[in-house]
């Protein structure tokens, strides 16, 4: 099980969170987005090996959405923050 550092509550067990998708998916512009843009936004995801930014919902805690940068190979969590935060790359 992962231990996720909620930026609001502190370190909590994964059990308290619900995965809420890719944090990198960008909603197309309502006016100018084409059908293809919307298709990509709704259905297509990268499947990177390594670092991945994800949204998690702290559903059994503060009920806020948070952003988690996780290495999908090792499960190591590099950084967490609010969805609007830019997260550290872990390279120090």
């Amino acid at each position, binding site marked *: 099980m992962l231990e996720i550092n909620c930026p609001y509550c502190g370190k909590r067990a994964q059990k*308290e969170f619900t995965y809420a998708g890719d944090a990198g998916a960008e909603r197309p512009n309502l006016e100018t987005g084409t059908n293809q843009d919307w298709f990509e936004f709704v259905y297509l995801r990268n499947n990177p090996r390594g670092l991945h930014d994800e949204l998690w919902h702290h559903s059994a805690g503060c009920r806020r959405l948070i952003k988690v940068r996780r290495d999908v190979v090792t499960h190591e969590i590099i950084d967490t923050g609010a969805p609007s935060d830019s997260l550290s790359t872990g390279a120090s």
Partner: protein
Amino acid sequence: MVDLTLSLAPGTYGAENREGPGVTVSQRHGLHILHLAGDLSDTDFPTAARHALGLPLPQLAGETRDGHGVRVLWLAPNRWLVVSGHKLETDAFGEKASVNDVGQGRSVLRLSGRSVRDLLCKGCPIDLDPQSFSAGHAAATLLGHLNVVIDCIADDVFDLYVTRSFDHFIHDWLVRAGKEFGVRISAA
């Protein structure tokens, strides 16, 4: 309010110890519970809230404050649970606050005894070591799959806020999980 909760019959369940049951469960009645939401960065809100409560809002994660018969629990950024023995006027929190009376939907259990932390640990993922979760700390978390709020009152005394319709389930869970310690359900 008519109390429709269906709890287990009062009595002692599980192991019998010479020192008595490790955990005692009793229901707290007559509490007024409000869910308070408001933006702390708008100074009107915390000022009005402080007047309504008689104490400042806790602002740290998991912090609780107590005074004038009111207990305030931090639930999330800009969200609090306000628990009092007397009724608080919801208007008193000012126009910038969103106040909801959730008292009818919550059941509040008082858990006490020497084994209370060991019992809670069985179904709760947060660190309940006295060093990290002591009196003055509260957390919205899980207990046996249920969303609960756990409020530490004293070293071996906790209040548990549960959705009222799960009252029977949570009693049942406490009794099953607490078999090895002995659990006393006290009469309402």
